[in-house]
């Protein structure tokens, strides 16, 4: 297990069940590998609860199929990398890294995404308050100006990827960053709020009209969850 991937508070809270109670380690030859498996987190709302912004059909496929595939693939490749480590097979460990990044990233990104969405009846779309509201105003002037910049970033993604409101761990400032494919927000930046810009996130409902999806999603953004991630 790459425990550094699980170290941020936001992810850990969602993945609590998946964190092993003992440190993950490879067993000695002939024994099974002791490690915590990633599991698909339950959605904190019904599949249809984000309608009309995101259809129930999309949510169901996205959670039950796409996210779950990242979880099972991550577990599978984690197992393989543990075996490669045990055999001191460095080439195999390196070859597996992009797969760990992709599927582990897919797991982390979607886990954060479900958390930072909410039905309007549970506060979805209600503007941020406190430190996050101030940080956004400092950097962008207003929430509307921020949303416009964020949507421009989303629209500019060439291919599959995500846009994130991130916090720079060095300066504490917030900013907008896009990431390709399932590259997770790790390292210098802390994920605050993410929007999935893969076609599977909107295609059944919006087809090629992705700008409409980017506009509608603000109605179901859970700013309370985003606020908790800010440090």
């Amino acid at each position: 297990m790459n425990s550094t991937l699980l170290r941020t508070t936001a992810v850990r809270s969602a993945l609590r069940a998946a964190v092993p109670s003992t440190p993950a380690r490879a067993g000695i030859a002939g024994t099974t590998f002791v490690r915590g498996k990633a599991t698909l987190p339950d959605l904190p709302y019904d599949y249809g609860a984000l309608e009309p912004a995101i259809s129930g059909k999309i949510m169901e496929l996205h959670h039950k199929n796409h996210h779950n595939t990242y979880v099972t693939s991550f577990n599978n490749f984690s197992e393989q990398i543990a075996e490669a480590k045990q055999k001191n097979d460095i080439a195999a460990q390196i070859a597996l890294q992009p797969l760990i990044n992709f599927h582990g990233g897919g797991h982390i990104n979607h886990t954060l995404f479900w958390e930072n969405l909410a039905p309007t009846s549970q506060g979805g779309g209600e503007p941020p308050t406190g430190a996050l509201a101030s940080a956004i105003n400092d950097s962008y002037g207003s929430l509307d100006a921020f949303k416009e910049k964020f949507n421009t970033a989303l629209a500019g993604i060439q291919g599959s990827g995500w846009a994130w409101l991130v916090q720079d761990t060095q300066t504490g400032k917030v900013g907008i960053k896009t990431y390709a494919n399932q590259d997770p927000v790790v390292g210098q930046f802390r994920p605050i709020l993410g929007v999935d810009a893969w076609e599977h996130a909107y295609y059944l409902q919006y087809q090629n009209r992705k700008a409409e999806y980017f506009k509608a999603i603000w109605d179901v953004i859970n700013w309370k969850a985003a606020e908790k991630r800010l440090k």
Partner: protein
Amino acid sequence: MSAPSYSLPPLPYAYDALEPHISKQIMELHHGKHHQTYITNLNAALKTQAEAVHTADITSQVGLQAAIKFNAGGHINHSLFWQNMAPASSAEAKTSAAPELIKQIKATWGDEQAFYDAFKTTLLGIQGSGWGWLVKVETGKEQRLTIVTTKDQDPVVGKGEVPIFGIDMWEHAYYLQYLNGKPAYVENIWKVINWKTAEERFLGTRADAFKVLRASI
């Protein structure tokens, strides 16, 4: 200031002609909306670029390169893609329409099935949006076949490279019909590959393969 202007090439078959393997709705959106958007954005970027060239604005020219590559790539890739598909019932969709190409495929991968298996593995290994291509690579008098993937809309335009056929692995290419069942799309796409076009590209030159792209100046 004149910049070349590209336009949407007509589909060489009806929108529903690839059913049941690719639905009419997918084809309509894919050709009429997605491909058209690449062309619209390409033409806009080329116009801005022509102005930047005219005013010797080098920083703008460099800044436009990513947009030109992405949208030109989208136009190139989709233009080749429509041509390298054909209705499953047509003679073009049979491998017998590509005797020379099949000969070299067998010489390269052992047999046809091994080629399909290798291609399938490559396609399913794409992380995110991209394309899978069968490419003829010419080096001097030698030529060989290879399966390559390109990310997002990167086109196959390297020196000596002739794209034989491409398979669009963006989710928009299959999602309305196959949802997350990407392996089924990858399985069925073989039924609508235009082997006649593939043979022509294999026996021809780069210029032949790309002639569909001629712009109006």
